[in-house]
């Protein structure tokens, strides 16, 4: 595949690996967090970590949209479907996120809820147009990448005068989550999670640009390298991070210049700020309440806000006690540190959200990396 294979070339990967082996200093360890689930997936699927020197460790961050979705939010969507008789539309991975009472949207669907998987916010709008007698709610999740399409759907619904379409908005913001991690006691006070730098988001950065990361590169003295989602992007970004650390620099560098610039997509940003405003606080699974970390629909678009249209208040629900998703999302623990990883909690029966999406740290390790946990004899 042209424009794809070039970024998955094994020969180039080996050359970068050789350079990494030469440049990573033997007298220290390097720990980098890849914020995005897209990077977690690329690292696991292509076996990138196999190509890294032993003293370069990747910590999987919380940038997997379904992983950080708190149980209470999924409960709201389920209540809309089962108690308010609305058609709930959402993205595929959201369907399997564990909620209260051993439910998920998939299981609520089996109990008679009209819950439909869509590929885009625009598809949800089509469902609303096709079912004028029913209320249709788009359960909108995701980081800055999926927010502009939701904004456009709301703007279009308003233009068309649709009376049966609304959005359960759960859009969250990347920079505030990274700041939250850097402010966490494990990173800031105790240093139990050593983070020497970040691989910055790919698609999120296309929308918000490189500038938003400049603050914490400077404030927290952590280098950031924005990278694409292909495995060579990740390898190159790790090399760039190692170099910054070696040189004592903490800058925002852009490996993903083919798609990201400093300002990002201004038209998309404009639509987002037209429709959404900051929430003072939002609960993240694993991170807890994070101030100014999510968006809500502006009062001018209140009629398209499912939280205002329907009586579904938010009730926080604690994770399963045995589940370590919270610590894993903060980088404090690895999937294998969790007692129920791979036994009680599997992709078929996820207990925690990290086991749901292939971008989740647990699901990625379960699906691609499990062989590293136990010795395997090969022929």
């Amino acid at each position: 595949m042209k424009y794809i294979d070039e970024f998955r070339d094994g020969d180039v990967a080996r050359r970068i690996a050789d350079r990494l082996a030469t440049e990573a200093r033997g007298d220290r360890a390097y720990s980098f967090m890849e914020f995005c689930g897209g990077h977690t997936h690329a690292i696991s699927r292509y076996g990138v970590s196999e190509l890294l020197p032993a003293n370069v460790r990747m910590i999987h961050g919380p940038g997997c949209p379904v992983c950080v979705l708190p149980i209470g939010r999924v409960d709201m969507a389920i209540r809309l479907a089962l108690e308010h008789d609305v058609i709930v539309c959402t993205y595929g991975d959201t369907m399997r996120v564990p909620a209260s009472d051993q439910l998920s949207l998939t299981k609520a669907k089996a109990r008679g809820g009209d819950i439909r998987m869509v590929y885009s916010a625009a598809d949800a709008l089509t469902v609303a147009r096709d079912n004028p007698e029913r209320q249709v709610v788009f359960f909108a999740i995701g980081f800055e990448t999926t927010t502009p399409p939701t904004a456009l759907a709301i703007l279009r619904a308003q233009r068309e005068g649709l009376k049966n379409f609304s959005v359960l908005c759960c859009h969250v913001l990347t920079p505030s989550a990274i700041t939250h991690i850097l402010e966490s006691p494990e990173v800031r006070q105790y240093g139990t999670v050593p983070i020497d730098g970040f691989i910055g988001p790919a698609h999120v950065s296309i929308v918000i640009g490189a500038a938003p990361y400049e603050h914490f590169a400077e404030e927290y003295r952590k280098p950031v390298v924005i990278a694409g989602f292909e495995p060579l992007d990740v390898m190159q970004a790790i090399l760039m991070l190692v170099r910054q650390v070696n040189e004592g620099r903490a800058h925002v560098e852009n490996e993903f210049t083919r798609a990201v610039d400093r300002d990002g997509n201004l038209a998309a940003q404009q639509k987002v700020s037209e429709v959404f405003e900051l929430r003072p606080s939002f609960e993240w699974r694993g991170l807890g309440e994070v101030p100014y970390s999510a968006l809500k629909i502006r009062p001018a678009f209140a009629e398209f806000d499912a939280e205002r249209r329907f009586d579904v208040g938010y009730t926080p629900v604690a994770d399963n006690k045995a589940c370590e998703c919270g610590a894993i999302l903060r980088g404090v623990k690895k999937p294998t540190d969790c007692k129920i990883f791979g036994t009680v909690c599997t992709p078929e029966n996820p207990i925690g959200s990290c086991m749901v999406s292939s971008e989740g740290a647990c699901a990625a390790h379960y699906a691609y990396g499990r062989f590293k946990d136990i010795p395997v004899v090969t022929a």
Partner: protein
Amino acid sequence: MNARDDSKGGTVRAGYVRPLDIRNGRIDMGHGAGGRAASQLIEEIFLAAFDNPFLRQGNDGASLAIPQGSRLVMATDAHVISPLFFPGGDIGALSVHGTVNDVAMMGATPLWLSASFILEEGFPLADLKRIVQSMAAAAREAGVAVVTGDTKVVEQGKGDGVFISTTGVGVVPHGIDVSGANARPGDVILLSGTVGDHGVAVLSQRESLEFETTIVSDTAALNGLVADMLAACPALRTLRDPTRGGVATTLNEIARQSGVGMLLDEAAIPVKPEVDAACELLGLDPLYVANEGKLLAIVPADQADSVLAAMRAHPRGADAARIGVVTEDPHHFVQMNTRFGGRRVVDWLSGEQLPRIC
């Protein structure tokens, strides 16, 4: 509607029964009631297409003569695909290929099929006829006879056009023992051609997802290919067609059944560029996408070359490749050396990657 037919002046020939209105007719509840309407549907659509001595006897079942000393193999498969017609095939052909292949994967020569249809009230007779004729053509090509069948009708909204269940019976030649439990460390894993064609072809027709592509389903009967492979290597250990769940899931099944591990070479697995591109776009992994005309074979290492040559000499195995080896592994992992130079687990399919594709 067709009053004209009745009033063509003059007398109506004795014994005349007005034929089904294939062009405009639709299935109604009467077609499933077991009366004259049902009988007419069977005669004009099913018998007309499947005609053979077994059916002509008009019994409730088929009486089959079994070759002396041979072992029978029986397999069954239900088909609920949406859409019913897709590039490269339809539910009719698929329902024959699916079961013929399941029988063939046991090392058997498929001979007979049963077919049962669950039809939804309102289903167009023209579509039914097209599907049945496609089934008949597929059966003829595979050299099997549809020897018995059944039809039921469900109310509108309680089916999805048509569901077809087929059961196949075949005979295993003496000395052949093919099973998913036979893989041994050191054996070689062969794949008969490109992966993911069927799943992507069906997906391209989905209402919510229509995209333009030249990919057609690979749906095909593989009994001819299997016969050539067994002729080249009677000691062939395992055969399986990687349908739902794709190559990845099928290899995991075999690894568990045989109590072994596997190590694949990603670069050796044939994928059409257009399938690769569609999967990339949709976030799918071709290793998990369904095939309906491909098989995986596990063979002793010293006979891999001769089996591979036999496969490549057959039109259904022209792109056959050696994709990996069976390993000793108490955890029964299927692993893969990636094109990128790393290694990873190739796990079972989790959840559903694509809905209703076979």
